[in-house]
């Protein structure tokens, strides 16, 4: 009985070996390649024998798929629709790879360093990021001279440019989506007899009153790693107001974060808000994606959010009304200035991509005026875009904020070098501060230390 079994096994194995050694065949679903034919279309006519026959059809090109990696929330649904339209028009498919925000930059840097980035990659604009995070001069395609650069907001264009060359496309709302400010529930404030605070002391008192009423004062999603950092650099215009020229001095390495009294005040006040329970019990596990749900629930009175947050919330939760929410600047260090922030998520074409022309074609398509207007009209998070010739859609509350709070200088992640690239590290230090492992002064000193490391690596003349 054993011999036939062995013989059968040997036969099966030999067959498998032969099959596996056989030349691979084209999959059945692959469209057959068209052979260039030398025959005339008309079978009755005979080709001239002395002239070389012209092929009547070119070989079918492989369908192109552009890979595109971006952080969570950077790709809006309207862009996905535009990508479908682009594919219908050109046959070029866009393969989006959306990465959780807390892992994005580490993964992007790893891919760039390994030489394996996607055809298009997303990144925050800003000169330090362009130079240090993405090394755009080596990793991104020079887009200077593209038609759409003439229509982009000059401030936004400056943030995606390095040494006079444009490397990125910033299709973003640099006002409504970039101004991270306190979004507050007017109904809760009115019920508790609270006014919009104009100083940190008033703000802290309001938080205590709200907490006393059994409502969590602020929805602060720390688990994402980036959101709670906003509190600090978004107050940059106030630091600049109190200490004129501070950003320039920091960039010239003439002073440090640790030496700034106003920054220490802001960091200390932030720590005080956490320690006094203003962020609630679940803040370390809360996620930014739940902001709309939290605001709509009425269980939270405020959150650091964009000017379009209430509109997004009302889209997701129709029972909640966008007009029930108002805005005021983050009041750390008694700040009352609007956080002008021209840098934002941008699109870069990878220099080693085999599909650079197709990627340029896609960016040009996205930035056709009618497509930009479509993106603007169909994205609740946008009220305007960083391009001229479009029709914005400001709400009364957004307009009121812009009329009330002055724009003086830009936020510190844009104004001060080597801050934005260490965003997630600052976030970790802040959590360590919240949990008692660091003091506010330690956090500032750690920022200085990382700035110095980056500056030395970048051979910054100010650090020599």
């Amino acid at each position: 009985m054993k011999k036939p079994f062995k013989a059968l096994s040997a036969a099966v194995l030999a067959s498998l070996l032969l099959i596996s050694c056989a030349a691979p065949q084209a999959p059945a679903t692959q469209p057959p390649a068209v052979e260039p034919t030398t025959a005339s279309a008309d079978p009755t006519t005979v080709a001239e024998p002395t002239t070389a026959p012209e092929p009547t059809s070119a070989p079918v090109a492989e369908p192109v798929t552009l890979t595109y990696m971006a952080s969570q929330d950077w790709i809006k649904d309207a862009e996905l629709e535009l990508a479908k339209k682009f594919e219908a028009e050109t046959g070029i498919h866009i393969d989006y790879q959306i990465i959780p925000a807390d892992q994005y930059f580490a993964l992007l840097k790893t891919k760039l360093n390994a030489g394996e980035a996607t055809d298009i990659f997303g990144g925050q604009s800003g000169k330090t990021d362009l130079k240090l995070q993405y090394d755009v001069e080596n990793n991104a395609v020079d887009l200077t001279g593209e038609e759409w650069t003439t229509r982009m907001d000059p401030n936004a264009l400056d943030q995606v440019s390095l040494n006079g060359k444009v490397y990125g496309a910033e299709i973003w709302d640099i006002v409504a989506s970039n101004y991270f400010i306190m979004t507050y529930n007017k109904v809760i404030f009115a019920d508790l007899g609270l006014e919009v605070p104009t100083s940190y002391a008033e703000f802290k008192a309001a938080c205590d009153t709200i907490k006393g009423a059994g409502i969590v004062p602020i929805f602060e999603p720390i688990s994402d790693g980036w959101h709670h950092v906003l509190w600090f650099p978004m107050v940059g215009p106030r630091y600049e107001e109190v200490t004129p020229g501070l950003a320039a001095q920091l960039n010239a390495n003439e002073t440090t974060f640790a030496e700034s009294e106003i920054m220490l005040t802001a960091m200390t006040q932030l720590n005080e808000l956490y320690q006094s329970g203003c962020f609630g019990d679940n803040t370390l596990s809360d996620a930014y994606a739940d902001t709309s749900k939290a605001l709509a629930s009425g269980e939270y009175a405020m959150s650091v959010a964009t000017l379009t947050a209430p509109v997004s919330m009302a889209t997701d939760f129709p029972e909640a009304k966008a007009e029930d929410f108002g805005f005021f600047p983050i009041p750390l260090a008694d700040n009352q200035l609007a956080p002008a922030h021209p840098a934002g998520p941008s699109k870069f074409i990878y220099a080693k991509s085999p599909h650079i022309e197709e990627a340029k074609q896609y960016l040009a398509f996205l930035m056709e005026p009618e497509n930009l207007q479509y993106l603007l009209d169909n994205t609740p998070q946008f009220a305007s875009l960083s391009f001229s010739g479009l029709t914005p859609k400001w709400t009364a509350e957004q307009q009121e904020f812009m009329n009330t709070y002055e724009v003086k200088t830009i936020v510190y992640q844009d104004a001060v070098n080597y801050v934005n690239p260490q965003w997630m590290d600052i976030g970790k230090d802040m959590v360590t501060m919240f949990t008692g492992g660091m003091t506010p002064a330690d956090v500032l000193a750690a920022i200085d230390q990382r700035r110095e490391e980056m500056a030395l690596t970048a051979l910054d003349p100010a650090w020599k």
Partner: protein
Amino acid sequence: MKNQAYPFYFASGALLLYGVFFVLPSLLGFAYAFTDWNSYTTDVHWIGFDNFITIFTSTKGYLRYLQNTVVFTVATIVLKTVIALGLALLLTHGVRRLANLYRLLMYLPAVLPMLVVSLVFASILDPATGLLNTSLRAVGLDLLALRWLTDIQLALPSVIGVDVWRGVGYIMVILIAGLQAIPKDYYEAAEIDGASGWTVFTHITLPMLMPVLTVTTVLNLLYGLKVFDIVYVLTNGGPGRVTETVYTAIFQDFSKGRYGLATALSSLLFVVMVTLGYYTIRLMHREDVS
């Protein structure tokens, strides 16, 4: 040497491949650990022990990450071995009915990808909406509904707990194979001599199982020292940096373009792994002989 069934040159092909693709890159890695190799410049300079000095003296907490790695490794070795041994004994000498079904159920978590396990547990352990705390609150145990992954005291033990849950079935299966290989004659002789259950365990089961325990311990040791994915997904090293391990730090340094420093850290861990692995095997073999 003459007793060998096959001549040495039979292994030369494998050794050559191993040397080119494993040993040589490792040695090159050691060399780069003494340089300032980074992503911002193409120049690489020899900087001696600077990277190692940074690891041992900087305020960035590398020693804390090393400590976390060791704590994770020791805790998972002890917990997995003890629990797996108990389950293996139970499912070999205790439970008879449906024993194979129970073995299968215990082994199932090992089949799941670590990423899936981590994402599931991140949801289960959410302090506000997670299954664990919701269940505890439902039965009135509100005091036990803790912030499993966000409390600085509980985060690392929680990660260890999830890893033990996933890994114990795998170790159990290896130990069951070891237990089944122990000849029944010993147990029959002990029974005739009137030996107690504890005496049988300490004088027959444990010594006979020692080679298998050596294997599982070394496997757990190497796995524990290399831990990355479960920490990365469950806590991403947080809250703050309290659950960072050596490999999450290497990943961060590499992703920030600090190749030299990351390589130094990696080389250091390699030395620790080889040393600990070698002495563990020697120690356990010595006990085995004695």
